[in-house]
C-alpha cells in the first residue's frame, strides 16, 4: 500500500513513530497528484514548494522530539475560495484568476499552526455556485469513478482530490450542499458543520448566512480529526459561536448504539432512484443491527426549502459579489472606458460566468424595492418554518437519515442546459443550511459502480452525534474502503 492511499489517522501514527517522514508523505501524495491530474483536474494550483517546506518543518520538529499537533505532516487540499496568503485564490473565476491574497483565512492559520501540509487549491464551481464544477470559470473536474461523470459541486475539486488519493484531507465549503453532494458522488466523507462552528473569516462569501467550511475525508475518523482542528470560536467572525467543541474522536467511538434515527417521508418520496432508495433501506437495516432505534418524523415545510434557498442565496450573493469591480484587485477590462460605471460593467461582463450572472440578477431582483417583501422576506419566513420543523423532529430523534442526492453522479454536460434541473441536485441538502444544522454524507452503497451518498442531519452543535452514527455505519460496512481505478 502506497502512502498516498492511507488515511490521516494511519499516517499520523507512522510519522509520530518516525517510521515515515512527512516529506515522504508529501512526495507520495504530490507524485500521485501529478499522475492523476491530467485525468481528474482537481487542482487549480498545486503548491509543491510550500508543501515540501511545511513537511520539512514537521520532520525537523520530529527529530528534535517536539510534541506534534495531531495532524502534523498530513497533506491537506483547500478549496479555492478560502484565502491563502501568498497563494492564488481564484474561486475558479476569471475575475479572480490572478488574485493573490495578502492574508490567511482563520482555518488556514489553524492549518499552518497545526503543521498540516497544504498541498494546493482545488477546483470548484465559480464562487461555489453549482453542483458539478461545470460552472468553474477555469475547467471541469472529473469524477474519479468515471471521468465522464461530474464529481459533484461546488467542492468538486476537493472531493475528487480526496477520492483519487491526490491529497489525504481536504477542506470545502457548503452553502446548499457543496460539501455533502460531491462527497456523496465521490464516495467519501463530507461534513458541513453547524453554522457558527467554524470561522468563515477568509472564506470568500457566496451566501453569508448559509456558508460554512468543513472537511472532506476518506473516512469518518479523519473527518473527526479535521473537524477538531478547525472547530474553534473566532473573534474575527461575529457569527462564530463561542461554544467549546467536544472531543470528537472520543465521542465518535461511542458508535450508533442507542441513537434514535429519524426517517422523514419528505426525503424519501418521488424522484429518488431505486438504487438510492435501496441504499437508504440498507442503511436503516445496518443501523438497526447496530442497536439504533428507527423513528418516523415529519418535516412538512421541506417542499419550500429549495425555493427559499434560491432566493436567499442569490440575494446575498448579489451583494457579496458586487465588490468585484476591477478597481482594486482581480480582473479589470482592457477595453477603453469613459467612466467608472462602464469600467464596472465591462469588467463584470468579462469576469463572471453565466451561472454567477444568473444568480446576481436573481438576487438583485429579489432585493429590489417593491419585491423585497414578496421574495426575500417571505423566504426568510420559510426559513424559520424549516428551522421549526427540525426543532420538532429532534424532539423524537437524535438525527435524521436521508439520501444525499436523488441519484448518483450524472454525466458531464447532461444537466447544463436547464438550470432548474441542476438546482434540484440540492433538494436534500439545502434544508440543513437554511436551518444552520450540521450534516454529513458518507458512502452508503453503489449504483453501477458509482457511489451513493447517505446523509445524516443533526441538531445544532451536535456534530458528534453525526460522527457517532457515521462511524458505527462505517465499522459495519465496506463501502468506504472501495477506491476507484485511475
Amino acid at each position, binding site marked *: 500500500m502506497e502512502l498516498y492511499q492511507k488515511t490521516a489517522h494511519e499516517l499520523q501514527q507512522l510519522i509520530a513513530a518516525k517510521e515515515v517522514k512527512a516529506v515522504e508523505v508529501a512526495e507520495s501524495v504530490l507524485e500521485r497528484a501529478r499522475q492523476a491530474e491530467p485525468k481528474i483536474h482537481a487542482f487549480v494550483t498545486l503548491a509543491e514548494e510550500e508543501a515540501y517546506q511545511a513537511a520539512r518543518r514537521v520532520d525537523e520538529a520530529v527529530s528534535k522530539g517536539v510534541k506534534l499537533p495531531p495532524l502534523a505532516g498530513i497533506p491537506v487540499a483547500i478549496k479555492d475560495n478560502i484565502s491563502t496568503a501568498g497563494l492564488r485564490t481564484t474561486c475558479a473565476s476569471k475575475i479572480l484568476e490572478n488574485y493573490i491574497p495578502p492574508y490567511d483565512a482563520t482555518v488556514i492559520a489553524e492549518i499552518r499552526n497545526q503543521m498540516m501540509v497544504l498541498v494546493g487549491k482545488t477546483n470548484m464551481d465559480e464562487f461555489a455556485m453549482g453542483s458539478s464544477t461545470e460552472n468553474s470559470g477555469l475547467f471541469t473536474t472529473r469524477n474519479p469513478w468515471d471521468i465522464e461523470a461530474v464529481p459533484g459541486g461546488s467542492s468538486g475539486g476537493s472531493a475528487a482530490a480526496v477520492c483519487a488519493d491526490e491529497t489525504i484531507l481536504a477542506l470545502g465549503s457548503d452553502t446548499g450542499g457543496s460539501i455533502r453532494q460531491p462527497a456523496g458522488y465521490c464516495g467519501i466523507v463530507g461534513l458541513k458543520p453547524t453554522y457558527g462552528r467554524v470561522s468563515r473569516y477568509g472564506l470568500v462569501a457566496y451566501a453569508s448566512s448559509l456558508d460554512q467550511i468543513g472537511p472532506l475525508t476518506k473516512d469518518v475518523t479523519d473527518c473527526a480529526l479535521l473537524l477538531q482542528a478547525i472547530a474553534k470560536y473566532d473573534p474575527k467572525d461575529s457569527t462564530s459561536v463561542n461554544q467549546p467543541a467536544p472531543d470528537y474522536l472520543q465521542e465518535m467511538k461511542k458508535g450508533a448504539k442507542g441513537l434514535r434515527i429519524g426517517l422523514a417521508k419528505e426525503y424519501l418520496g418521488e424522484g429518488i432512484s431505486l438504487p438510492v432508495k435501496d441504499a437508504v433501506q440498507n442503511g436503516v437495516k445496518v443501523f438497526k443491527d447496530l442497536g439504533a432505534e428507527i423513528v418516523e418524523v415529519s418535516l412538512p415545510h421541506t417542499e419550500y426549502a429549495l425555493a427559499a434557498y434560491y432566493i436567499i442565496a442569490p440575494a446575498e450573493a448579489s451583494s457579496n459579489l458586487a*465588490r468585484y469591480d476591477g478597481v482594486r484587485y482581480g480582473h479589470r477590462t482592457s477595453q477603453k472606458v469613459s467612466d467608472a460605471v462602464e469600467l464596472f460593467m465591462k469588467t463584470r461582463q468579462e469576469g463572471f460566468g453565466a451561472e454567477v450572472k444568473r444568480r446576481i440578477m436573481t438576487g438583485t431582483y429579489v432585493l429590489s424595492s417593491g419585491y423585497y417583501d414578496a421574495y426575500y422576506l417571505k423566504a426568510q419566513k420559510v426559513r424559520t418554518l424549516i428551522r421549526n420543523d427540525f426543532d420538532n423532529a429532534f424532539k423524537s430523534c437524535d438525527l435524521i437519515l436521508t439520501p444525499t442526492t436523488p441519484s448518483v453522479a450524472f454525466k458531464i454536460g447532461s444537466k447544463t442546459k436547464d438550470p432548474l434541473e441542476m438546482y434540484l441536485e440540492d433538494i436534500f441538502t439545502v434544508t440543513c443550511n437554511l436551518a444552520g444544522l450540521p450534516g454529513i454524507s458518507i458512502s452508503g452503497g453503489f449504483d453501477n459502480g458509482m457511489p451513493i451518498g447517505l446523509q445524516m442531519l443533526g441538531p445544532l452543535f451536535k456534530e458528534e452525534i453525526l460522527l457517532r452514527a457515521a462511524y458505527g455505519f462505517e465499522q459495519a460496512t465496506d463501502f468506504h474502503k472501495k477506491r476507484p481505478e485511475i
Partner: protein
Amino acid sequence: MPLNDYEIVIGLEVHAELKTDSKIFCGCTTEFGGEPNSHVCPVCLGLPGVLPVLNEKAMDYTITAGLALNCEISPYSKFDRKQYFYPDLPKAYQISQYNDFLLCKSGWIEVASGNGELKKVRINRVHLEEDAGKTVHSGTGILDSDYGQQDYNRCGVPLIEIVGEPDLRSAQEAKEYLEKLRTLLLYTGISDCKMEEGSLRCDANISLRPKGAKEFGILAEIKNLNSFKAVQSALEYEAERQAELYDKGEKMFKQTRAWDENKGVTVLMRSKEGASDYRYFPEPDLVPMVIDDERLQRLRNTIPELPDSRKRRYMEIWGLPEYDANLISGSRELADYFEAAVKEYGEAKAVSNWVMVELMRLLNQEKIEITAVKITPAALAKMLKLIDAGTISGKIAKTVFEEMFMTGKDPEAIVQEKGLVQISDSGELAAIAKKVIDANPQSAADYLGGKAQALGFLVGQMMKETKGRANPAMVNELLRKELEQRK
C-alpha cells in the same frame, strides 16, 4: 410674490465621524491624514473573504449622541447593507442602518429662533454607519479628469447620520441648529466636529411653500456645504432661487444641487426623479445589537450637564448676563474651567468678567485652546482673592494675569517677584501725594482754582510714581486732603 410670502422649509442631514481610536469594523487607526492608503487592512479594503467585527465604542458613542439629542434608544438594533457601486466603496455596499430597529430615533433639540425664543427642532433618527473612501481626481473635477485615484484611509471610520425633521424655517435657524448640534456632540466628546477635515458634514433639504400651505413644496438637496457660513449662504441663495422660479411659474423638480463657494451659487448635480434603489437588506455578517439597561445607564452617566442647563444655571443662580452665559456654556471645556474657578473663588460674576474679557482676549491673541491654558482655575481664583485682599489693584492684576497666562506661574509669586504689591499704607501714600503736588504746582493751583479735572492729572502722576501700585481707592482721597490743606 416676495420671498417673505413663502415659508421656507429646511431639514438637515448631518454626518459626524466618531472619535474612536480604531475604525468601526477593523483595528485600523482613524487618525486624520496619513499617506494615501496607509490606514487600511484587508477588512476595510473589503478583500474577498473578510468579515466585519463591530467596534463597541462606536456603538456606545452613537447611543451617547442619541441620549444627548433626547432620542429614544432601541433595545434591539441591527445593521443593513446599503448597496451601490462607486470606486470609493470597496465592498460596493455601505454597512449602515435601514429604517427599522434604528439605534436612536424621535429626538429633539432646542434652537434659538429669530424672535429670541427657543424652538424645539425634531430629530428623526441617529444611526451608525461606516464612512467611504475618497476619490482624488487627476483634473480639477470629475468631468475634466482622465482618471481618479482612491484613498481608503477614511474608509470604515465610524460615522453617525443625524437626520433632522423639516422643522427649520430660515437659513439662520438652520445655522443655529447645526451649531447647536455641534456643541452637543463636542460636549459629549464623541466627535471632533471639524468641518474642514470632514468630520462634520451637512446636506440640506430645502423647499418653499406659500405661507399657510399644508403641503410641502418640491425639495432640493444641497451638498458640498463645508462650513457653517456655507450652510447659511447656500440656503439663503437657494430660497431666493426657488422663489424666483415659482414666481416665473416654472415647473419644479426634485433635484440634488451643489454649493459653489467661489461663485456663491448652487448648481444642479442631478435630478432625483429616478431615485436610486439601494436594495437594503440585513447585514448577515453581523449579529443584532442588544442594548441592555446597564449599558444605557453607564452611557447616561458619561453625559455631562449639557449647555442649555448650564446656561440656565449661570443666569438664574449666578446672575450672569445672557451673552456671557451663552458663550461660556457653549464650550464644555470653557464651562468646566469657569465652574472650577467659581468653585475655588466662591463667586461667579468676577470670574466670568475675567474669563470673558482677559482670558478670551489672550486665547484669541495667542491662538490657543482653553484646554492648553496655563492658568489653572485655582490660580485664577487666587489672583481674584489678591485683588479682594487689596494686595494688588485690578489694574495691576491685568499685568499679573498676563504673566500667569504666559508662564503659568503662581500669582502671589509674580506679585512678589515683580514687587507689584499695592501700596495701601496711608502714611506712605500721603508722602507721595505731597511729593506729586510739590512737583506740579500749576495743576495744584488749577484744582484749587476750581478746575476739578486737574485732579485726574495728579492721580495719573501718582500712579506713575508708584508704577501703578498705589491703591486707587485711596489715591483720590489723599490727594484731595493734601490739596485742601494748601488752600
